[in-house]
């Protein structure tokens, strides 16, 4: 017998039924505790049987939500329910041994709800980092899928219901304005993918017709390397995804601060102008580098950015002098 633990979501209105069921099934009550999940509170009810610990999590309990006591089912919960009321402000009802707020009698009301601005900022930063990491991981897995089956993946790009639900959960925790931007970017990407899927069947048809043609010439070689026609079709499918990439950028920008995002957009907006300014014979890659450089500079402090620009100007004038 080894210790196994799990966390299970539970609706508040199912609490007492669940407690009754656990008691009937011979589960032992371990504890109850609250955890502050700004602006509300999550309640945890833990039970154990045969080395399995089940933690029921009731999320988003507000100050106004009356929470029924389970002390008539498990008397041992009375300390924890009094504690949740005093330290977190949970509206516990009908506790068997009710201290009426006199268990700990803390100097401050609901002390466990207080979070300093520094802590809040740190948590917010970590939340953003976690969201960005998740987005990156999602992007990487999509990339892997597209490598395995590029045309099919490009033509059917759509978040699975599970991923969408997870994303929605994260978006709920974000600033509503930013969340709206991410949603818009996502919809645009899906629309672009849907549009490309109309072209994809023809690309797929082109590749499927190309393979027999190649087979007629050299069957074994065609099976291993794509034909020129096939390459073109894949290229077209990838090109159709270009708006999607912009949307990805938008999604990333939405995670940045508004001011920083504005600077990056401004820098990127200068990219075509640079291409025009540099003339037709100037290498396109050079113009893109400038734009990227500007985008990066926009993320730096103004002083540092100015220093970098000055250094670049000096280097450019030295080259011209030669």
């Amino acid at each position: 017998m080894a210790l196994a633990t799990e966390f299970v979501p539970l609706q508040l209105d199912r609490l007492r039924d669940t407690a009754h069921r656990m008691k009937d099934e011979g589960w032992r009550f371990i504890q109850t505790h609250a955890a502050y999940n700004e602006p509300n509170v999550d309640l945890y009810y833990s039970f154990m049987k045969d080395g399995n610990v089940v933690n029921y999590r009731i999320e988003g309990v507000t100050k106004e939500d009356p929470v029924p006591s389970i002390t008539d089912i498990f008397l041992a919960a009375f300390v924890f329910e009094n504690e949740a009321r005093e330290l977190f402000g949970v509206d516990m009802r009908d506790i068997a041994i009710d201290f009426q707020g006199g268990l700990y009698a803390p100097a401050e009301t609901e002390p466990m709800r207080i979070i300093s601005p520094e802590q809040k900022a740190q948590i917010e930063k970590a939340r953003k980092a976690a969201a960005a990491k998740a987005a990156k991981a999602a992007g990487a897995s999509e990339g892997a899928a597209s490598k395995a089956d590029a045309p099919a993946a490009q033509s059917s790009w759509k978040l699975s219901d599970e991923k969408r639900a997870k994303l929605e959960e994260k978006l709920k925790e974000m600033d509503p304005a930013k969340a709206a931007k991410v949603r818009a970017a996502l919809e645009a990407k899906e629309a672009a993918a849907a549009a490309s899927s109309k072209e994809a069947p023809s690309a797929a048809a082109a590749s499927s017709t190309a393979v027999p043609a190649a087979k007629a010439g050299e069957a074994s070689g065609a099976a291993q390397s794509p034909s020129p026609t096939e390459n073109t079709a894949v290229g077209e499918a990838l090109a159709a995804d270009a708006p999607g990439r912009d949307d990805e950028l938008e999604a990333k920008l939405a995670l940045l601060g508004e001011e920083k995002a504005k600077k990056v957009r401004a820098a990127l907006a200068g990219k075509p102008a640079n291409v025009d300014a540099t003339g037709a014979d100037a290498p396109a890659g050079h113009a893109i580098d400038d734009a990227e450089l500007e985008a990066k500079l926009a993320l730096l402090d103004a002083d540092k950015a100015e220093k970098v620009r000055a250094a670049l100007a000096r280097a450019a004038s030295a080259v011209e002098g030669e």
Partner: protein
Amino acid sequence: MGQKSIIPFGPQHPVLPEPLHLDLVVEDEVVLEAIPQIGFVHRGLERLVQKKDYNQFVYVAERICGICAFGHSMGYAETIERLMGVEIPKRAEYLRVIWHELSRIHSHILWLGLAADAFGHESLFMHCWRLRERILDLFEKTTGGRVIFSVVKVGGVFRDIDKSQLDEFNHVLEGIKDEYSQIVNAFLNEPSVRNRTYGVGVLSSEDAHNLSMVGPFARASAVNYDVRMLGNGAYGDLSDFQPILSNNCDCYARMEVRAAEVVQSIEIIKELSARIPDGEIAVPVKGSPAFGSEACNVLEQPRGECYYFAKGNGTKYLDRMRMRTPTSQNLAGMAVALKGCDVADVNMIVLTIDPCISCTER
């Protein structure tokens, strides 16, 4: 038929090492109801987890209680290791369990002394505590501390116990066995002690289970549960482990269970020190608990099962740390066991749950 009256019991009382208040509703010297009240030593240590990072909090966890100090640091570290998916070296697991069992021995002997003091056997009290000092000497030799040890860290332990020290452990523990058996003989067979404990404060097996009692208090009512039987850490390498149970369900049974658990702990230390593997005693732990990650853990403290919960928020500070200690779980059982007893027996019943109010209030 007498008149009902309320007798306040504690928070200052000779039998209470820590502050607990009971409102005893009595009639003709018989307790009809006991309403417990705590809240005298609440320190808000769970809150402190937001100000001390997850490594620093090991030392805070250790200071929750002066008797279960090692257990709390171990339980907390195990929870963080679960939270972050850290696997510690086998040797560290063994070292933790050896120290933890040593803590159980000193805690139970301390309790036996307090019990002797409660029923007025002062010399027995002194003998118990004299014996306990020899256990504390072992702690001092291997950790540098007698109460707070600071040897546990997230990812393992700070100090090793070498072969010669382990041999000394076994030598000392074997050495106290004879003396200990004489003391236990006084507790279990002395008529004056039996008079104060036998048939007093009965909590039926059914009640103990329904009220979710833990530790020796529950096992004395034949509840077959001890976290060690789950085989976490080095406990899983024991050749055999059976919880010590009693069917008497009274104060005497609680004393009997604790007395036997001391011998059981000595055997566990002996077995583990004989088969402790060589190797590292810690692994480096980097990074912070992931945003939204949750983990829980249970550990058998000397007083019973202790539950730990941790929630990460992506920073080095935890979002929430929860420690549900055995006494807070056993308060309800104590209130039930007190119903119907004589006023003179209240101190004995309260003591036999081995209340630790500092743990309960944190």
